[in-house]
């Protein structure tokens, strides 16, 4: 084998099996920085927790706090496009879902779609959904529910399902 072939072959071998060049020199520095980044992440998470508590206390006091969460029924094939929520006839939330968000809902995630304040007593919530069924047809459904807001914070879970699931299209649950 000629010298030229040998030189090129050595290059080839170096190319296939990960280079260990200047990168290694900085590996320790990167490791050290990584440790510090982990520490600062931890600090910022603590700040976020404290800030969230403060924000909730300041903006959504417990006696008027209302939060509405949206989930998809188990194994749901409905491609949810949008959800609109009206509380006592007033628009409260209007959300258009990205593919990532829809996937997150299908994986069992629950989206907090609305957080606000509401007086204690009787109220009405109207939930409308738009989506596409597995066969490609458009699907729209809307339903109104009455609910009572007591002194404690109200967490309302809305579970959505398509017409093929055999489940009610919209179920309301209290948590």
């Amino acid at each position, binding site marked *: *084998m000629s010298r030229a*072939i040998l030189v090129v072959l050595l290059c080839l071998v170096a190319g296939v099996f990960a280079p260990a060049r200047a990168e290694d020199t900085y*590996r320790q520095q990167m490791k050290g920085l990584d440790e510090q*980044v982990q520490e600062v992440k931890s600090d910022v998470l603590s700040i976020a927790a404290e800030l969230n508590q*403060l924000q909730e206390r300041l903006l959504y006091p417990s006696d008027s706090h209302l939060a509405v969460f949206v989930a998809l029924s*188990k194994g749901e094939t409905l491609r949810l496009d949008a959800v609109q929520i009206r509380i006592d006839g007033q628009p409260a939330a209007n959300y258009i879902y990205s593919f*990532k*968000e829809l996937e997150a809902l299908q994986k069992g*995630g*629950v989206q907090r779609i609305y957080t606000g304040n509401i007086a204690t007593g009787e109220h009405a919530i109207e939930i409308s959904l738009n989506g596409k069924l597995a066969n490609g047809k458009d699907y729209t459904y809307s339903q109104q529910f009455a609910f009572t807001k007591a002194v404690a914070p109200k967490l309302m879970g809305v579970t959505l399902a398509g017409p093929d699931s055999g489940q009610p299209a919209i179920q309301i649950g209290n948590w």
Partner: protein
Amino acid sequence: MARSRHVLLSLALAATLTARAASADDLKDLYFGEAIFEAAQGRYFEALERLDAELAQHRRVDEPERDTLHYHLATAEFDVGDFELDYRMHHRAGRAIKAVLEANVDDVIRNEAAFRLARIHFQKDQPEEALQALERIHGKVPDAIRDDLEFLRANVYSALGRPADAVPVLKKLQAAQNLKGFAAYNLGIALLQAGHSPEALQQLDQAGQVASRDPATAAIRDKSNMVLGRMMLESARFDRAQQSFDRVRLDGPYSNQALLSAGWADASAGNYERALVPWRILIDRDTTDSAVQEARLALPFAYGKLNVYGRAALLYGQALDSFGGELEKVNTSIRSIREGTFLKALVREEIHQDNNWVVRLRMLPDAPETFYLTSLMASHDFQTALHNYLDLEDLHRKLVTWQGSFDAFDDLIRLRRANYEPLLPEVDAQFRELDSQMKLRVEQRDQLRKRLQDILTAPRPELLATADERIALERIRHVEKAIAGVSEEQRAELQERVQHLKGVLIWTLRTEYPQRLTQAHKDLRELQRHIDVLTAQYESFVRTRQAAVHSYVGYDAPISRLRTHVGSALEQVDMLEARQGALIETVAINELKARAERLEAYQSQARYAVADSYDRATKAQAEAAGAPQ
């Protein structure tokens, strides 16, 4: 080489782990579901924020079994560790999992925790600690992790330089579907390291023929063929080498290297004509790829060997032009990085929309520096550094937003104070008046209730007399007193009439007593209803009054504390971001300089070869012209 294999094994392991998913129907805790929602979108900071808060609250409650998170506690404890890992917080993840390990939990949970801890140590290049964690596994192992656990154990043995221990473990995993390709490749490498070369070659050959459409399995199959091909090439078994390189997909990550190597296998066997085929394909590919650049030299080299010097000279000339252009591109990239363009390109929002963002960096306009950095950017350490940089940028944005929100909070509190404080004294005065009236009415209700209660045991019909009857009775008593002063003849008659009247009244009171008692209880209940409404209004007022005060009192200290924390965290984040950015730039520039040096070497080689080829071509032409007819 050891390091690259280690990283590959980690990636393989991560790829085989299955994500756990809940569903809305089983969900009992909305905030836990919210954490899953965030994590499923790769928003691990937000996921951790929710889940940390929920777990902290769960630990504070007096009766945790009545808390909704109780139903998901085991999953949540693991998920928080997973999210921390995904957010590259290995230390915290390790601590969380150690806490599970040290708690009084059953075998299945403890073993899964030990597995996860071992995985963290392995990913952090700590194989000794990983093995210690694995040695804590006893008893029942969850089915879902059984294969992954054994695969990890084998990888840990290999990383510790104990390939002989890894071999039997990997042999048992050959049928595991989720490890298809990876277990076969790792077994080949372990056999090789353990000194069982013939068996290793056979194993790599098998790994190189694993049938699968899964991209990860296909990639490891290509990798197996590359390793086997290289070994065959080194031992001068060119046909076998050729066979392995031919198995590598033409559109996979190893395709360029495979084409280059296939050419060298032919060239090494002296079959230069066949070597032309892969190299011709290769030179039309991405010019920034090192294999393509090498092929630009290899192709004219083969033509030279075939005595086609004119063609060789032409191709060397083209290679020279190409290297010059690429060198210019590399130098532009170095300048661009020094000007900070690379870091600016990294933080562009649009490139983080999918998992292939590193690859997509190449397509960014105005970012020439990314052309030559794909392989560097694919390396584990550099990716960690890039991710850290992006995380720091994200933290920076969050902290700056929070800083702004404190001013908004201050405004809100000031406005609320200005609104409520002047109103409260008057409201309080009115309330005190109403409060005393209400107390009086409540006392009266209590007296009535007591009186009715007493009547039940000792009936007193006169207490249920109507107002008219009470007046009449009173007048009768007056008349009775007045009669005492009249003459005796008149008195007897008057007394008889008074007794008659009194008798009528007493008769009414006694005969109507049961109905009146029932009515009195009904009235008392009615009164109670009114008092209940009044009490609810009273309590509502008290709450509203408290809420009004709580809406602006008691925030100064926490806001001031948070403002300080956010300020110092921002300083720390900015400092780390600058250091991380500088390090990324330095490593990237070094990589580009290495590529520039290689291009310069190629350039010199091509320059020499082009002249040499022209000489030979001229000589060959002269020889041909001078040859006897």
